[in-house]
Structures are given as structure tokens and as C-alpha cells.
């Protein structure tokens, strides 16, 4: 029972906090890379980030084990965050 609760807690954390990190990374990455005016890019990125958040949560609970759940959140988050930072480097 305890193990089960820990597993649920781990996934809930991955979904809620990890999902938010993923959504934020997606918003930041899209905001700088989308080929539109900056206000448009930010608006589109912000809206899409909620879709990314929801997909992240679904992934966390749909996948086989907690490791895959965390990897599926943090991996893309790191990738998107890296792309955002790459734009910073290119732009400066």
C-alpha cells in the first residue's frame, strides 16, 4: 500500500510540477522561435503551453512506470529549454 501511494505521489508530482515546467519551457521556446511578430509569438506560445501541459499530464499517467513518466516530462522540458537558451545565444 505504501509503495502504491509513493508511486501515485511521484506521478502526481511529475504531472503537476513537471508538467508546469514542461509547459513553461514550451512557452519560452515557442515565444522566441515562432516566426511571427513578438506579441503574436508570445500569445500563440502561451495558448499552446496549456495544451502541452495537458498532454504532459496524460503522458505521466498513461505510461508504464514512473521512470518513463519522469523521463517523458523532463527530457522534452530540457530539450525545449535548451532550444530557448540557444536562441538567446544566437540573438546576443
Amino acid at each position: 500500500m505504501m509503495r502504491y501511494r509513493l508511486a501515485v505521489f511521484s506521478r502526481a508530482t511529475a504531472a503537476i510540477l513537471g508538467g508546469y515546467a514542461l509547459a513553461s519551457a514550451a512557452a519560452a521556446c515557442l515565444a522566441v522561435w515562432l516566426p511571427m511578430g513578438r506579441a503574436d509569438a508570445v500569445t500563440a506560445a502561451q495558448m499552446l503551453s496549456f495544451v502541452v501541459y495537458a498532454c504532459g499530464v496524460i503522458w505521466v499517467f498513461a505510461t508504464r512506470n514512473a521512470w518513463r513518466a519522469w523521463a517523458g516530462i523532463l527530457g522534452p522540458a530540457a530539450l525545449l529549454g535548451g532550444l530557448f537558451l540557444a536562441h538567446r545565444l544566437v540573438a546576443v
Partner: protein
Amino acid sequence: MKAAKHKHPGEEGLRQSMSWLHTWAGLIFGWVLFAMFLTGSLAFFRPEITRWMQPEIQVQPAPAVQAVATAQRYLAEHAPDAKRWFIAPPSDREPLIQLLYQVPKPKPGERGFVRVKLDAATGEPVTARQTRGGDFFYRFHFELETAFPWGRWLASIAGMFMLVAIISGIITHKKIFADFFTFRPGKGGQRAWMDGHNVLSVLGLPFHLMITFSGLVLFMVMLMPAGIQAVYDNPRQFTSEVFKANKITPPLNQPAPLVEIAPLVEQAQQHWQGRLGRVTVNNPGDAGATITLLRNVGDGVSYGLLAPFMRFDGVTGALQESEDDHSATVVTTGVITGLHLGLFAEPLLRWFYFIVSLAGTAMVATGLVLWIAKRRQKARPGDTREAFSLRLVDGLNAGTIAGVVFGVAALFLANRLLPADMPGRQVWEVRAFFIAWGLSLVYAFLFQRRKWQDLLGIAAAALALVPVVNALTTDRHLGVSLPQGDWVMAGFDLTCLASALFFAWMAVKAARARKAPARTAGKPRAARNEAVKAAVAATAHTPATAAAHEPAVPAAVHRTAFEPRGDTP
């Protein structure tokens, strides 16, 4: 509950894990979401509720040009040194001229903004009983009467759970189309709740998805600052770039007379071929004054937060800046948020909004009840912890589902029964709402066995009393409003009566269910699980298909009457 750790990946595993996610994501914020859905539904009739709650005000709207001239005369006399003026001209929905002005240096303890309502015919301020009117429901819907910004965050988090619950609910569903026609109230118990939940959810699915997603989009600047901070130095830079109409300009600190606003309104209405929504005057009486005219948000779906505007120099009346169109992306956002606010919806569509939104409210309510129904079937006798969680959730369900409705009725009753000149009466109206809800929760935990029938009965009685008390305390009751064709007053009273009937019917049902022994008790567990699966698959089999079409009709009818409460046409 073991679904989260399924051993066999693949389709069936996905469905089970999504069912688990749907169950829990829906439960945690279920009660908050119920209150949000209900108050949000009422907020579609925000001005009409306000009008019902101030029955002494009976005025006719005037054309915008004339009303703005009246407003300018009043403000020049009473608020010449205000920092900003806001003027909302009368409309069919809000027949008063609404003024708001910002006092330059409010004394400690005084409000920075003063609100005045003028009768367009006389130009005089109208005095009526103090009430928050429909604004209470509108505010509660996204702030939950909690301090800024916590209430908004809480409501948004609940909204995100809702979005997850909707998506996981869709994935859980095997035969989304077949379930559409499946309603078997005769089967009773969990099956009927499941069918009801499915019908309400699937029928309104586009609306539920839209309203949940757009609710998040409305607060995206607050909720998701990362995208803004990636590009801008601060969020204000972004908002002033997108929402140009709200620009605040500094004063030049040289006195100069303000130009007549009415001709500018005429010019703007010509240009738009549309209605005026709001006038904002920055620094009136100063050489740096500006006058911003905003088009009526009801003129277009995408205008919710981004209506076209024209800005004029406040001294010369020369056009400084205007905006009619936005980029495709911003218009998309405008449509999404505009759909949520529903301000464009004319009477028929507004009623449709209201009814589908009540279906959403009922979707949340049936989902909460279904949690109990499913769980109770699986519970082993003698499991005390299980019994505790069942009691807790069931108590919260009854205390909230019936309690919030009772609260709404209590607020309307307080509006009529508190003395009209009582100081702080608007605060007590809102307290009546929370006291009624709180008492319902207490009752639900004290009287475990009778809570549903009693609380539903109380809610029904309170709703039925609203038109009665209205008739006793005002001269705008159904006997007058119906013959006069006063549909704001009549519609409100009739909606209360219809809701009362609906809740009385549910109370009777609850009382009958209590007397009848649980029907499924004798079945072995495996057979019951099969039955649940069959509930989803049933329509595919021939005997069920024929039978399923008939119940679909009562389902639709009762959905129309679903959970309505105090409202107006």
C-alpha cells in the same frame, strides 16, 4: 484504483489508467468546480440578475450620443479633478448610464474609485438598495471570494484539473457516439448515474472543452509568465502592446477644457457601423487629456477583451490612434476568450449558453455522485476506512450540490428581505450565500441518512420562495411582469420556479431511493464489473439499441430543465 500500475501496456491499459486519472482529477476539485460552473452559468445573465436585485430601478435606455453628453455634464460638475473617467452608455441589457471615476488622492479608508449610475432620461443619479447583483456570481466564478491573486490561482488550478479530467474522460470512453443514446434510468444505481454523466458530458463536450480551455487562456498572462519573460522585460510591456486601448498617459499638469465627447462618439459609431461600449477619459481638464472610445464587446465574437478602439486628443478632439483589426493570432485568442465571456450572445444564444453551462454543472455533480456509486459497490463490508471516505465524499457532495443552490436562493431571498436602507446590506447578501452553504454542509454530516432528500428539499423550497417573497415585497411580481411582458423580472421568477420543481423532483427521487433497498446488492462482483462494461457496449447489441432510443428523449428534456436557478431571459 490499481489501474495506475497496470501490467499490460496497450489499449486496455491506457483506458484503465485514464479512467483512474479521470476519477481522481475530477474528484479533488469537484466541489470547487461545481460552484464555479454554477456561478459561471449565472454570470451569463449578470446584468439581468442585477436588474432583478434592484427592482426599484425602472428606466429606459437612451442613445449613446445623448447619454455620453449627460454623463459628461455630471462628471464635469462632480468629478472635475478625477484622474480618469469611465462611462458606459445604456444598452438594452443595462439601461442605466454607468460611471466610474478615480479620485486623485483618496483619504485613508476611502475607495479610490467611485461608482455612480445615472438615469439617462433625467441625468440624475439613481439610488437603489445596495447590492452586488449579478457581479457577485461573475466575481465568485473566477475569484472564489478569495484575496487577489490567490482566488484566481485556485480557480485556474481547478480549471487545469478540469481540462485533464475532460481529456482523460474522452480517452476512457470506448464508444463515445453510442453512449450518446444510452440512458437507462430504470436500471437505477450506478448504471443510471453513469449514463446520465455520459449524456451530459458528451452532449456538451465541445462547450465543456471550450469553456475550460478558454478560462485558462483568459488568465494566461498570470498563469504562464515564462512565454512573456522569454521575450519581454516585464508582463506590462506585453499587455500594453496587445491591449492598446487601456494605455494610461501621464498628465501635462496644465489646465485645459475638455472637448465635447458626444460628437466623437457619433464619429466613432459612423466609422465602426457599430455600437459604443465604453468611454475612458484620462486626465480630464488637463492639457494631456485623452479620450478613448471602445466598441461594444457585444458587436463581435472576438471583441471580448479586444474590441476596436479610437483614441482622441482630449482638448482638440483630433484622432490620435485607432485599431480595428488584430493579427490572426491575436484574433484567435480574442475568439477563444470571447467565446468564454459570451457577451456577443443575443437572447436565444445566451439561453443556450446558460443551459449547456448548467449541463456542465450537472456533469460535475453526476460525476461526484458517480464516484460514490462506483465505490460503494466495490466496498467490502466492515472496511472502516473505506466507510469513512465514502461518508466524507457523500457529505461534501450533498452539502455542496444542494448547498450551493440553496446558497444562491438564500442570496436572492436576503436581497428582498434585508431592509433596503440597511448599511452594508450587500455584504450580508453574500454572507447569506455562504451561511446557507455552510449550514448545508453541517447538516449533511449530521444527518447521514436523510441529507440528500432534506437538502434537496430545502433548496427546492428556498427557490420556490424567491418569486413568492418577490411578490410580497415588490410590485414587479409575476402577476404584473407577465402581463406587461417584462421578461427580465418574469424570466427570473419563472426560472426560479422551474429550478424549484426540478429540485423537488430530485428530493422525491432521493427519498424513494432511501426507502428502496439497494438493487445491485445481491450480484456477485464479477457480474457487476461485466455490467459496467456492458453499460458502455450495450448499444451495439440489438435489444438495447431499440430501447436506448426512447430514454434518450427524456434525457434531453430533463437536461434542459437541469439545475436551473435564479435567472433571467
